[in-house]
């Protein structure tokens, strides 16, 4: 299907984009890579009156590291994340996650800002942001706002962004030295949206988790930072400790039913991912083997 008719404006600067959005409010949509917006428009799920194309704004592109903070511009594409030495060194979880996002032709256009603003609960990057304790940087008529990733995602395709605001960048703390990560998702076909996925970031000292952040996705209306991780931090992880964490995870999940999976199946797969991540992060295969006996 084709998109319905709309007006098009090519933003010349962030200020210019904000002016256009201030005029049009929720009748406008921001176009960055277009890899989620265009399908939605072609399927007539949305029909904006104005499309504000920010694709030419060089000021929103690029990756920089300064004083322990990794700043990624909103227009940075999936392929840029995949190829970046800064990402590989300071946020390798992101590089791992991107290999699961769609296919090369999509990754050449899709942007991090577009993915986060779109806020599909089954997509990879929102969960990574939650796991990495990212700050989402937003500009609007009143100036800049900095929003913790956990507060940014508010529902299915819903965020804390107002129609007058533009997502301009994300800030991530540089991964500490002893940190380690795990990323996996279950999908019908590599590159499809996840049925259930997990983006995990950990700090491990002497075989124990000093910190563990578990960002589950496709298990609710937004990415979930699992509280069950608390059961595993600063303790010697045994099979019974892991079992407790698995029960705690099942209790806090409220997965949706759709054509891909029932809530029970999603709960089960989330537990499988938790057990697998813990055993891989601690390099203890016996934990995974014992978790479901």
């Amino acid at each position, binding site marked *: 299907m084709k998109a319905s008719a709309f007006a098009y404006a090519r933003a010349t600067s962030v200020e210019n984009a904000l002016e256009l959005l201030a005029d049009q409010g929720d009748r406008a949509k921001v176009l960055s890579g277009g890899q989620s917006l265009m399908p939605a428009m072609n399927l007539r799920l949305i029909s904006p009156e104005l499309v504000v194309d920010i694709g030419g704004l060089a000021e929103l592109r690029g990756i920089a590291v300064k004083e322990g903070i990794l700043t990624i511009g909103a227009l940075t594409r999936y392929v840029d994340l995949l190829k970046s030495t800064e990402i590989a060194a300071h946020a390798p979880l992101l590089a791992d996650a991107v290999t699961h996002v769609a*296919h090369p032709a*999509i990754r*050449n256009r899709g942007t991090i800002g577009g993915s986060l603003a779109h806020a599909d609960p089954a997509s990879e990057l929102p969960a990574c942001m939650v796991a990495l304790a990212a700050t989402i940087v937003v500009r609007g008529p009143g100036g800049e706002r900095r929003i913790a990733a956990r507060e940014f995602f508010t529902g299915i395709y819903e965020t804390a962004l107002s129609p007058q605001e533009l997502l301009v960048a994300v800030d991530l703390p540089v991964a500490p030295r002893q940190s380690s990560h795990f990323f996996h998702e279950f999908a019908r076909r590599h590159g499809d949206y996840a049925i259930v996925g997990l983006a995990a970031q950990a700090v491990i000292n002497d075989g124990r988790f000093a910190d563990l952040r578990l960002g589950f996705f496709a298990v609710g209306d937004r990415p979930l930072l699992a509280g069950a991780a608390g059961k595993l931090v600063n303790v010697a992880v045994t099979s019974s400790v892991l079992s407790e964490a698995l029960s705690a995870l099942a209790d806090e999940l409220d997965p949706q039913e759709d054509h891909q999976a029932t809530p029970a199946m999603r709960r089960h797969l989330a537990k499988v991912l938790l057990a697998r991540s813990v055993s891989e992060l601690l390099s203890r295969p016996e934990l995974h083997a014992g978790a479901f006996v």
Partner: protein
Amino acid sequence: MTAPITISLEVNGERVDTSVLPRLNLADFLREYLKLTGTHVGCEHGVCGACTVRVDGEIVRACLMLAVQADNASVETIEGLSDSGEIADLQAAFRDRNALQCGFCTPGMLMAAQDLLKQTSAPDREQIREHLSGNYCRCTGYQAIVDAVESTARARAGRTA
């Protein structure tokens, strides 16, 4: 602002200056304005890969890009790659390996396969499958397509060694 918008781009090495409506996607622009009908339109929401073209050297979905977004860009279609001889060996391998079937997916498959072969000189079958995973073949000719890409990679490696 719903009025046509002037764009200037290069398509297969030739300058194109024209104006288009904002809603026109790049695939339809190539097919209907320039009669470059090798770029196929399948699903129109970025799933099937039949509309794959190169923009500034990188493969993209032409159905998920507006023609107005291609302003100042260099676009290469299957006609461009075919006429220049860049993929003559790959096309021959598709014929030899019976990877053509109905042919609808073929232009997109060739674009994606050439993209892989430019980046990776000796891809294994898994890498080939992964790189082509965004391209559907409704005849399910995947085995033969992977064969053709693999044999082209081998032949090119031998030639440049």
